[in-house]
């Protein structure tokens, strides 16, 4: 993937570029908003990672200008501000996802992955039937089967599985789940998400040989077919 990083903090920018290159991406960098906008409008990008406070042109203004020219490049906004409703302004300006500093690289990589693959996976928003190996989920009838056997899920477990299936093959972090399934943006002190996941795992993996729901150490979870 071709990724643009617009970040004025050199330490953060260098590490970010390095990590993304190690993950196999092509990376362009800019240290101010104007240069960032110029690059974003001239190069075919898969994703732009934009810091919110930038010299010369503010990050939000950059995203707005980019959207005004009709570019739909997914944008991940990085912010060092007070949060709460800054997230809303960031997303309203045209950002697709929002991450507050300091962040873990694993969190950022997971979000970049999710943004890049949004819409192009077989399990996109529009599909009413989601499928992974022998696991099937029907959004219309709210029926879940594995290997043809019906699986009983609570409403919330169903939502959780739906979210995981839509991101199948990707790493999904706890905060992504809290945001995607519950629409909350905070870090719970207790491991609330882990317990929900372990219940879901009980339901879909317990009676089957090949587990589908995997824990990714230090990052989150992944629903995928292979080991």
């Amino acid at each position: 993937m071709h990724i643009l990083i617009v970040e004025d903090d050199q330490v953060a920018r260098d590490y970010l570029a390095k990590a993304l290159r190690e993950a196999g991406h092509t990376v362009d960098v800019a240290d101010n908003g104007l240069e960032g906008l110029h690059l974003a409008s001239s190069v075919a990008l898969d994703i732009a990672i934009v810091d919110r406070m930038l010299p010369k042109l503010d990050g939000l203004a950059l995203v707005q200008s980019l959207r005004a020219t009709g570019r739909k490049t997914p944008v991940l906004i990085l912010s060092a501000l007070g949060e709460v409703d800054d997230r809303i302004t960031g997303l309203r300006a045209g950002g697709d996802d929002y991450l507050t500093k300091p962040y873990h690289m694993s969190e950022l990589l997971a979000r970049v992955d999710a943004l890049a693959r949004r819409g192009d996976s077989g399990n996109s928003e529009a599909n009413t039937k989601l499928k992974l190996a022998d696991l099937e989920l029907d959004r219309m009838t709210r029926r879940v089967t594995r290997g043809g056997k019906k699986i009983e899920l609570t409403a919330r477990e169903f939502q959780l599985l739906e979210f995981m299936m839509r991101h199948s093959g990707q790493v999904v972090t706890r905060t992504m789940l809290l945001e995607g399934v519950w629409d909350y943006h905070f870090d719970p002190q207790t491991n609330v998400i882990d317990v929900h996941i372990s219940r879901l795992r009980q339901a879909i993996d317990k009676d089957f040989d090949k587990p589908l729901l995997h824990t990714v150490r230090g990052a989150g979870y992944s629903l995928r077919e292979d080991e």
Partner: protein
Amino acid sequence: MDQEQRFLGVLGSSPFRISMVYSIAFALGAAALLGAVYFAVSQVVDGSTDNLIEAEVQGLREQVLVLSRSDFIELVEQRSQDQDVRGAVYLMVDPQLRPVAGNVPAWPKIAADQGKWIQFKVSVPFGDETREHEMRAQRFPLPGGYRMLVGHDVQERQDVKNLMMRGLIAAVVLTMLLGLGGGFWMGRRILAQAGAISAVATQIMRGDLSQRLPVRDAEDEINTLAREINGMLDKIEQLTLGMRTVLDSAAHDLRTPLNRLQATAEAGMRQLAPASPERRVLERVTTEVDHMRSTLDALLRIALAETGTVAREAVDLSELVASMVDLYAPVSEERGIRLESSVIPGVQVQGSRQLLAQALANLLDNAIKFTPERGHIRVFLRQAGSGPEVIVEDDGPGIPADKREIVLGRRVRLDQARKLPGSGLGLSLVAAVTKLHGARLVLDDAGPGLRVALKF
């Protein structure tokens, strides 16, 4: 219904009440003045006719002594014809009450025991028809059983008095109507202005500091007041903006180095073998960065809530409480705690969904932390007297009554909590968020345990 309420609202408004008091006072004044005029005029008019009659009676009494009966009859006839019948009236009757002379057709049927003055009605021609006219008269006996009646037509004076009385009533009624009408009009005007002001004030209290009170192009008190309040709002908006800028730059100046620290530690870890002691040191660094981050998040959220610089929206409190219970149910069950809830549907508040969720999460985190195994946590959303209230109750150790005020302060952790993880900011964030939403935070004994109530 709405119109009726608006109408009643106008009746209750102060301009209407004031003008009602004034119009009653003015009406009473008008009634007193016109009443005095009425009384004086009646006195004069009544008095002058009565004097006239008295003089005439006196004259005739003297004449009857010196004149023969036939001369007297002639005199009476003469006097009757002299006068228009609407003026003076005379009647002389014989002992059988048959008219002998005069211009009144018949002796009035009047009880004998009436005083000196009598009043009776006589039909008089009035154009083509006749009208009943009021007469006022005196009677006196004549020699030989004859009787005499001398009086005057008082219909005109009655008409004048009636007209005056009607005028008086009309003036009082008109004063009242004008006063009430004016008061109603002023009341509506003021209410319309006050309504516009309170509508904007509500929006401002909901956090939209860019709103200003409507000001009309007039120099009355309300407009002056509105202008001054607008000036005050400018100041508040400026201060709030300044506060927000300070918060944002503080956040930026703390988050940026923390992010660098995290990046540096992570970059270092990538180059080290998984179990090496150096890597473990760096892992500890990132753990501390996480702690600092959550403390910073909590502090910033408290500051945002306390300065009120958070965007507000309609929040479905029922959905929020239910979904928070749903989020925490598995983790409490795993710890052998029963999480029970009772949530009434359809409760809405104005505020920040994320901050309310964070506050509720803090309460639930606390409750789970302090509730022993096989304990209970109860969450309620219910309608109390003044509004909805959210209650989180546990049967943990609770907080002693004398320490309840203290724990709401920043970074307070009671002894028993020192060994448990947490920043000590949990309840102060709850307090700040509660205040932001105009609610009250009440800590209470759940006997045993702690009951926290957010009263909206």
